[in-house]
């Protein structure tokens, strides 16, 4: 389809709007939500509803507060809400996604000027905030080996299992084969365990240009390299890579959070540098940090460096251009 509601040329454009990009994101995230729903039951969906609703409410509240127009067509707060859901453990009480959503939009996004101007990834900020508030609850995963679904409204049972990421952190080999981990039937945050589905989502997003493959590739490569050089499990470097990449939220973050165009660099070289640094920092935080997941914190730190990386790359290009120019004048 061709659109023509623009004031400046070109008057005919393809529908490549922010809204369309966000719709792609939402479509993919909803597809990703299916597996945990089948596994944990409808509680996951309720968590998602709470999280999205709190993000949207925060957006409306801020617009009222700051007397600004609301543009819901961009749908970015829904994406933030869904990503927050994906990073929560399944049995967590509802205050966590709600707090994370409100913090993400009301503190990390809207005050900076909304979509496109936020320096920090809102979802990462929200999740990091909740992790700091209640670390114990954030890493408690319900035991689903008995079968059945989680109750929707009651507090979940105390029985909890440790995740492969926690096992890696304590220096053990997780109690399952890497091949089994591909299907996502293991303890971890809601949307981050279905590695195969996430990979399919990634391909879709790359093809639709809603995410940049350079970021994901450099992030994963750097993390894999780190895992191979400093393995935490006994075995070949390959085993270490397989476990490290599949455990926890790393793979999900590589596809959905590192690729956030607003908070990642805009130059190609900058993207590769940013992705690689984020990968290494995530692994360092995992190994030496307080928590078993480090991706959100690593991202927040690198978000702050984003303008610096872009500036550096552009300065390098300008220097190259100036040198080229002076060479031409001489020769």
């Amino acid at each position: 389809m061709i659109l023509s509601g623009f004031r400046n040329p070109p008057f005919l454009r393809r529908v490549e709007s922010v809204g369309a990009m966000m719709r792609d994101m939402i479509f993919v995230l909803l597809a990703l939500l299916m597996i945990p729903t089948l596994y944990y039951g409808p509680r996951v969906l309720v968590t998602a509803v709470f999280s999205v609703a709190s993000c949207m409410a925060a957006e409306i509240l801020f617009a009222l507060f700051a007397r600004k127009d609301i543009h819901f067509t961009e749908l970015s707060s829904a994406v933030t809400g869904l990503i927050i859901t994906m990073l929560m453990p399944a049995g967590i009480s509802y205050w966590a996604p709600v707090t994370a959503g409100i913090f993400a939009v009301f503190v990390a996004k809207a005050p900076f000027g909304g979509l496109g101007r936020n320096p920090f990834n809102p979802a990462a900020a929200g999740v990091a905030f909740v992790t700091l508030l209640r670390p114990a609850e954030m890493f408690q995963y319900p035991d689903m080996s008995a079968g059945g679904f989680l109750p929707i409204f009651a507090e979940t049972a105390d029985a909890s299992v440790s995740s492969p990421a926690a096992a890696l952190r304590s220096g053990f080999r997780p109690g399952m084969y890497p091949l089994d981990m591909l299907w996502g039937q293991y303890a971890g945050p809601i949307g981050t365990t279905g590695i195969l589905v996430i990979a399919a989502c990634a391909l879709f997003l790359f093809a639709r240009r809603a995410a940049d493959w350079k970021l994901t590739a450099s992030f994963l490569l750097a993390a894999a390299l780190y895992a191979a050089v400093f393995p935490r499990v006994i075995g070949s470097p390959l085993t270490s890579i397989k476990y490290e990449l599949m455990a926890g939220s790393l793979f999900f973050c590589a596809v959905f959070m590192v690729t956030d165009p607003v908070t990642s660099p805009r130059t190609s070289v900058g993207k590769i540098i940013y992705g690689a640094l984020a990968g290494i920092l995530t692994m360092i935080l995992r190994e030496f940090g307080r928590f078993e997941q480090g991706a959100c914190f690593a991202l927040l730190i690198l978000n702050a460096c984003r303008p610096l990386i872009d500036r550096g790359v552009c300065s390098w290009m300008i220097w190259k251009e100036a040198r080229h120019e002076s060479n031409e004048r001489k020769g």
Partner: protein
Amino acid sequence: MFPFFSRGLRMEQKKRKLLMEPVRELLPQGQLLLPLPGAVHAGARLVKEGSTVTKYEPLTCPQTHAPVNSPVNGTIRELRSITHPLLGETVCAVLEPETAKKGRAGKLHLEEGVDTSAPEGILAVAQAAGIVDEYDGVPLYHKLKRFHRFGRDLLCGVILDEETYVCGSEAAFREAPEELAAGLELAAKACGAEEWRIAVASLKRLQGVDWVREHREKMEEAGLVYPSWAMLEKRLRAAGKTPERIGAQACIALYRAVKKGTPQVKTVVTVAGEQVKQPANLRVVIGTPLRELLDECGCLPESRIFVGSPMTGKLVEDLELPVTADTRCVIASPHTREIHTYACIGCGRCAAVCPEKILPWYLYENLQRGGYTDPEQLLRAQNCRGCNSCSAVCPSGISLGKAVRAAAEVRERSGWE
């Protein structure tokens, strides 16, 4: 190629039906509004209000632009100043055609003793015939002189209709391929280019033309990626050539001016768009009001009309404005609600699509900051071709093309080369 690796922009073509039909002739119904570019002062004009003109009689003799020849016998009713979206502020002659059916046979006004087989003679004809390139609106003789001066070795006659709807040049080429080739040969001779080629967007689309099949070695395929000339130019430069382009319609006009002694008074315009009932390629007299074209093709009321090209064209409010030689299309699209523009979200599509590897978002960011802009920071802005691809792909709907041109201007003012 994967979509995320390729530069440039693929657009919907929407012209299969347009190309199936022959070019339709549209005779002017009423008064013509002939723009007289470069003739602001009375000294550059050869006519005044009330003068009677014959067909092909020159109306102007400007210093910096090609002269304008009268397309019909008639009377100049008025000289009026208008603001045309493509030409800017221009003086226009309101020409009332004579109603008598039998017109006096006209001929191109040339000085005595011009040898049309010599390069200088061809240039003189191109100037006297008032030929203007339909792709950039520059007089043909200016372009040829410049190419001669720079010593270009390859001259391309371009039929690069890779944008949505537009296919006027291609339709003109289908009608008279040998005239285009002959005109291009003349142009190559005039500018001293050793070789000439016909550059087309898609050879597949021209398979039905016998001439193309027979002269395959003279054709260059540029592909349907916009801006295709940028892509083709890069390829030819890599092969060690210095290519330049002139429009197909200008070539045909040059051939007719040299061989038949007729100036360029008509052009093929594509009239299309969602609001047009019967899209068509129309051969119209330059100076015909846009309203006549739209009425001929059945345009619905309440449309947004823009002229020029789909990517770089301008909106038209007043439909009494005339068709010019560089009006490649007239497009009518429905009024849609205004699209909200967002802040830059940093997707980098503008940089990915740019044929010159400019970083439009970076220039935009630099200019947005306000205050003094360091021209050194405006990376590669001077290379901008004005293709507007960056604006077209921006998901936030930012007019990046405008920002890049503003940046280029800042750079130029600071004396950057």
